[in-house]
C-alpha cells in the first residue's frame, strides 16, 4: 500500500464547508415537503377528507315498485312480474368483443344489427361507467336462461339477474288504454330531470295511455342505499357500518290506479264484437265514466315493453289495419245515421219542425238539379219525426237541412261536444269535424252550398266523429243535456288501498235541450229498437232477455267509398271500401244508465253487424248489476286471468284473414242503407 499523500487522503477544509451547504440544502428540501404536507393535511384537510368519503360511498338506487292498474272491482290488470335479464358488466368482461359477445349472439340468436347494438352499448359503458351492468337482453325465456346458465364458464362478465318487468295481464285487450313502457331516450331524460324528475339512463317510462298519463303517480319515489365500495367498484359489506343510520332511504311505491272499467263487461264486449277492426265504448250516462272500451285490432303491450324486434316493430307500424291507433278516440269516422239525433234536435229547436211534421219520401230528395237518394229506393211514403228516426228515412232529414241550413245543425253538434276534443286526456284523441258554413267557406273549393248541409244532416260529407264523442252525445241526450267529461280512472290508491285521490264526475257543459224535444227524439230511438220494422229491433229482441226494458238506439251504415251508378253488394267491394256499421244508444230508455256506441269498421250494416254487440253488452251490464246487488263484493287484488273465448286476432292473423272475413249477416234483417250521392 502506497503511503497516502496529504492531498487526496484528508478532505480539505473547503470540502467540509461544502458538507454544511449540502446539509442545509437537504434540510431545505425536507422543509419544502413539510410545507406542502401542511397545506394538504391541515389547510385543506377537511376538503380532502370529504373527497375521500365521496370516493368510497356509492349510492345504489332502490327502485320503487310501480303502481298496479286495477279494474273497477279491484282485479289487477297490470302489475310487475319477475323476469330474468342478461347483463354485461364491461369491467369484468374480458375478451368481450372476441369471445363473449359472439358466444352470446350464438346462444340468444342475435342478428347482426342486434349484435352491433350490444357491442356499441358495451363499448360506451366501458368508457363511461365500466362497473355499471349494461342490459343486453331483457326478459329471457326459460330456454335462453338455461342455455346461458349452462355456459356460465365461458361468459365472463355476463350475469343474469331478476328484474321486475311490467306484466299486462289482459294481453291485447285494453292495450290502447293501458299503454306500454319502454326505455327512456336521452332527450326525455334531460327534459324530465330538468323538471325535477329522477330518471336514469336505461329506465323505463310509460308510453301511451294510462302508463304515460299517470307516469309520475305510478312511478313512486326511488330510495337510496349507500354502500362502501373499493376502487374496483366492489361492495365491501363489512365496512357498511361506517355509514351510520341514514345509509338507507327506503323507496315509496307508486300509487295504484283503479279504473271505472269493469273487466267482466269488457270481456263481454270483446267477445261480442265481431269485427276485425272497430271500436266499442260504453259509458255511464250520469257520470261520464267509461265502463268498457274496445279498440280493435290492439297490440300486445308485453311485447312492446319487452324485447320487440325491429322486424316486429315494422310489422306493427306498417300494418294497414293500424293496430297502434286507438279507434275510440284517436280516429274519426263518418257517423252515418247515428248523427240524425243531432239533426232532429236542431230541427225541433229551430221551430220549423215538430215531431208530427210530415214529409213525403219518394225515395229521394230533389235539390236544384240533383237528387239525394234515400237508402230505400222505393221510398218510405209519408213520415213523421218518430218514424223517420225508426226507419232512418233520409228524406225527412234532407228536408230539415234544406229548410234550416247547416249552421243550426252544426251548432247543436258542437254544443253536444262534436268537433272538439272531449278532454279525456288519458288517451290521445282527435277533435273530429263538425262542419258549419264557415268551415265549408274555408275548407271547400267554391265555399258552402246547400248540398253540404244535406250530406251533413245524415252524418256524411265532412261530418266526422270519434266513437267516444258519439257516446257522449247519446249520454247527454239520455240524461237530459249534461255533457260529461269522459273518464276512466275512478281513484288513486296507495299500497294499503287507502284513497289518495278520487276523481269526481266533471261536467263540460249543460246543453239547453227542451224536455219535449229530448223526449220526442228518445221516443223515435225507442221505436228503432222496440218496434217491429225498427233497424235494431231484431238485434234487441235476440240480445236482451228482459222484454220490459226499453232500449233507445240508432243504427247507422256509413258509406266509405263514393257510390257508382250501380250499387255493389258487400262481397263485391274490397275491404277498405266497405261501409262502417254503427250502433249508438242507451238503456233503459225511461231511466237511462248506460250509453253505448259500437263501430264495426268496414263491417257492413249497423243493424246486423253492430247492434248485436251493443245488445250483448247491455244485457251483460244489467245481469252484472243484478248479480252484484245480491252477491258479496269480490276480494280485491286478484290477478286477472283472461276468460275471453274469442281471442282477438293478432296482427298477423288479421293481415292474413282480412280479405275473406265473412259478413256476419243475420238473414232477413231489414237494413237501413244510408246512402248519400254527392254527384
Amino acid at each position, binding site marked *: 500500500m502506497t503511503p497516502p499523500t496529504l492531498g487526496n487522503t484528508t478532505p480539505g477544509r473547503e470540502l467540509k464547508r461544502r458538507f454544511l451547504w449540502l446539509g442545509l440544502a437537504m434540510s431545505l428540501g425536507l422543509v419544502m*415537503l413539510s410545507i406542502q404536507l401542511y397545506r394538504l393535511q391541515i389547510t385543506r384537510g377537511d376538503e*380532502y*377528507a370529504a373527497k375521500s368519503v365521496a370516493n368510497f360511498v356509492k349510492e345504489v338506487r332502490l327502485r320503487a315498485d310501480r303502481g298496479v292498474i286495477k279494474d273497477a272491482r279491484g282485479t289487477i290488470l297490470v302489475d310487475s312480474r319477475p323476469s330474468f335479464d342478461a347483463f354485461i358488466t364491461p369491467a369484468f368482461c374480458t375478451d368481450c368483443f372476441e369471445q363473449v359477445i359472439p358466444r352470446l349472439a350464438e346462444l340468444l340468436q342475435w342478428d347482426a344489427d342486434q349484435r352491433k347494438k350490444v357491442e356499441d352499448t358495451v363499448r360506451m359503458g366501458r368508457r363511461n361507467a365500466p362497473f355499471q351492468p349494461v342490459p343486453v337482453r331483457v326478459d329471457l325465456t326459460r330456454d335462453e336462461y338455461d342455455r346461458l346458465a349452462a355456459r356460465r364458464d365461458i361468459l365472463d362478465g355476463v350475469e343474469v339477474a331478476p328484474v321486475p318487468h311490467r306484466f299486462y295481464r289482459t294481453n291485447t285487450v285494453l292495450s290502447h288504454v293501458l299503454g306500454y313502457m319502454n326505455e327512456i331516450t336521452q332527450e326525455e331524460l334531460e327534459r324530465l330531470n330538468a323538471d325535477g324528475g329522477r330518471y336514469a339512463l336505461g329506465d323505463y317510462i310509460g308510453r301511451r295511455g294510462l302508463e304515460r298519463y299517470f307516469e309520475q303517480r305510478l312511478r313512486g319515489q326511488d330510495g337510496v342505499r349507500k354502500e362502501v365500495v373499493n376502487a374496483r367498484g366492489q361492495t365491501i359489506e363489512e*365496512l357498511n357500518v361506517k355509514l351510520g343510520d341514514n345509509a338507507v332511504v327506503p323507496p315509496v311505491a307508486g300509487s295504484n290506479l283503479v279504473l271505472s272499467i269493469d273487466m267482466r263487461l269488457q270481456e263481454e264486449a270483446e267477445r261480442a264484437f265481431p269485427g276485425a277492426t272497430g271500436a266499442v265504448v260504453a259509458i255511464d250516462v250520469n257520470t261520464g265514466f267509461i265502463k268498457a272500451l274496445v279498440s280493435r285490432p290492439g297490440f300486445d303491450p308485453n311485447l312492446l315493453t319487452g324485447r320487440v324486434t325491429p322486424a316486429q316493430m315494422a310489422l306493427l307500424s306498417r300494418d294497414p289495419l293500424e293496430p297502434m291507433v286507438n279507434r275510440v278516440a284517436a280516429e274519426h269516422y263518418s257517423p252515418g245515421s247515428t248523427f240524425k239525433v243531432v239533426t232532429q234536435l236542431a230541427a225541433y229547436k229551430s221551430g220549423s219542425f215538430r215531431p208530427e211534421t210530415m214529409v213525403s219520401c219518394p225515395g229521394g230528395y230533389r235539390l236544384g238539379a240533383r237528387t239525394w237518394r234515400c237508402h230505400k229506393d222505393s221510398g218510405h211514403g209519408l213520415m213523421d219525426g218518430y218514424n223517420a228516426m225508426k226507419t232512418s228515412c233520409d228524406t225527412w232529414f234532407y228536408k230539415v237541412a234544406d229548410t234550416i241550413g247547416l249552421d243550426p245543425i252544426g251548432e247543436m253538434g258542437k254544443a253536444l261536444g262534436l268537433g272538439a276534443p272531449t278532454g279525456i286526456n288519458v288517451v290521445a284523441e282527435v277533435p273530429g269535424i263538425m262542419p258549419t258554413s264557415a268551415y265549408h267557406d274555408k275548407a271547400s273549393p267554391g265555399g258552402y252550398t246547400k248540398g253540404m248541409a244535406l250530406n251533413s244532416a245524415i252524418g256524411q260529407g265532412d261530418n266526422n266523429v270519434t266513437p267516444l264523442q258519439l257516446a257522449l252525445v247519446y249520454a247527454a241526450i239520455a240524461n237530459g243535456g249534461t255533457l260529461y267529461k269522459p273518464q276512466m280512472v275512478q281513484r288513486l290508491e296507495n299500497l294499503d288501498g287507502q284513497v289518495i285521490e278520487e276523481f269526481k264526475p266533471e261536467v263540460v257543459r249543460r246543453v239547453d235541450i227542451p224536455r219535449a224535444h229530448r223526449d220526442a227524439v228518445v221516443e223515435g230511438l225507442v221505436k228503432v229498437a222496440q218496434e217491429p220494422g225498427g233497424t235494431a229491433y231484431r238485434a234487441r229482441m235476440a240480445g236482451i232477455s228482459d222484454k220490459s226494458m226499453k232500449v233507445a238506439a240508432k243504427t247507422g251504415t256509413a258509406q266509405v267509398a263514393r257510390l257508382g251508378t250501380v250499387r255493389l253488394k258487400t262481397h263485391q267491394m274490397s275491404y277498405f271500401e266497405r261501409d262502417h256499421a254503427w250502433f249508438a244508444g242507451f238503456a233503459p230508455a225511461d231511466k237511462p244508465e248506460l250509453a253505448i256506441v259500437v263501430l264495426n269498421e268496414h263491417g257492413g250494416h249497423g243493424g246486423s253487424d253492430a247492434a248485436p254487440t251493443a245488445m250483448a253488452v247491455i244485457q251483460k251490464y244489467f245481469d252484472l248489476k243484478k248479480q252484484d246487488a245480491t252477491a258479496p263484493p269480490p276480494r280485491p287484488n286478484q290477478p286477472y286471468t283472461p276468460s275471453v273465448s274469442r281471442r282477438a286476432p293478432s296482427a298477423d292473423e288479421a293481415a292474413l284473414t282480412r280479405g275473406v272475413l265473412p259478413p256476419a249477416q243475420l238473414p232477413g234483417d231489414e237494413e237501413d242503407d244510408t246512402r248519400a250521392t254527392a254527384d
Partner: protein
Amino acid sequence: MQLRIERRMVPHIPWGLIICVLAVCLLGIWNLASASRPPLAPVWSSQALYLGLGMVAVLVVCLVDYRWIQRMALPIYAANILALIALRFFGHTAKGAESWFIIGPFRLQPAEFMKIGVVLMLAKVYHDDFRPNEPSYGLMRLWKPVLVFGVPFVLVLVQPDLGTALMIGLTSLTVILFGKVRWYLVATLVAGVLAGAIIIWNDYIREVPEPRPTIVRHHLKKHQSQRISGWLDPEADLRGSGYHAAQSKIAVGSGGVSGKGWREGTQTGLRFLPEQHTDFIFSVWAEEHGFVMCVLLLLLYGAIFIFGLGVGFNARDRFGAFVAVGVVAMLFWQVFENIGMVIGLLPVTGITLPLMSYGGSSMMSVMLSVGLLVNISMRRHMF
C-alpha cells in the same frame, strides 16, 4: 482484504445513523402491514425478511475495508454496466419496461445496484483526480465524471425507466456540484432549470388558444406528456393520467392532523391507489397517521441524511467523503422525489421510498449504501 472488525473501530460505529435507519425500517414494516391488510398478501413478512437480509448485507459491507471496495470500484461499475446491457437480451418485461432479471423466485432490478456502482465510481474518479492547486472543475475536466454517469443513465433511460435514470442523473449532479465546478457551469445549470420551467409553463400552463405553440411537448411520448399534465392538474383527467396524483393527494389530505388510525385508512383499505405498497407507500402513512407523524418521518429521514453527511464530513479520505455524499444524495433525491410526487409537488415517476416501500432490490441497495456509510465511519482513523 480484511474481513474483521477491530476493537478501535467500535467507538466510531455511527449508532445514530443505524438507529434512525432501523426505526424507519420498522415503521415501514408496520406501515406495510396496514397497506397489505387482508385480503391482500401479507407482504410485510417478506419485507421483514428483506430487512434481515439487508442487515446481513450491512454487516458484510462493514467487514470489508472500503479501500478494497475503492480498488474494486471499476470492476463493480463495469459488472453493473454489463448487467444493464444483458438486460436488453435476457430481461423480463413488466409494466412496459425491461427492468428485471428473473432468478428463481426473485426478481432483480439491476438499475437499483447501478446507482451504487455509479456513486462508487464517481467517488473513485474524484479521489484519483484530485489536484490541490486546481480545486474547481472546468468543462474539459468534467469528461470523466460525465462519462461515468452518462453511460448507465442512457442504458437505464432506454429500458425505459425514467425514474431511476432521473435518480442516477440527480445523484451524480449533486456529487459533481459537490466536487466543485466553475461558476459558468453553475450559471448554465441555473439557466437550464429556468428554461425548463419556462418550457413547461409555455407547453402546459399558459392559457393560449389551440393549437398551442409547443416547444417540447410534441416530442414527448403520450404517457410522458400525460405525466406532466397530470402532475400540474391531476383533477383534469381523474380516470386517466391524473388518477394516481389525485387519489394520492386525497389520501394524504384526508389524513389531517392525526390520521385515520392504523389499518383504518379508506383510500388504502379500498385500494384506490394501485402501487400503494411500493411507490405510493407514503400516502398510506400520511392517511393513517396524519401530519404530525409525517413530519416525524421526515425528521427521521433528515437525521439519516445529516448523520450520513456527518460520516462524510469526518471521513478519512476524499473517496470516503465522496461516497458518503453520493449515497446521501441518492437517498435524499429518492425521498424527495417520492414524497414530492405523493403529495403533488412533483410529477409521478416510478421511484420507491427508501426503507419504506416494499421491494427486495430497493431494500438491498439502500442497505448496501448504509453499509458503506457505516464502513466509512468505522474506518475514519485507520491508516
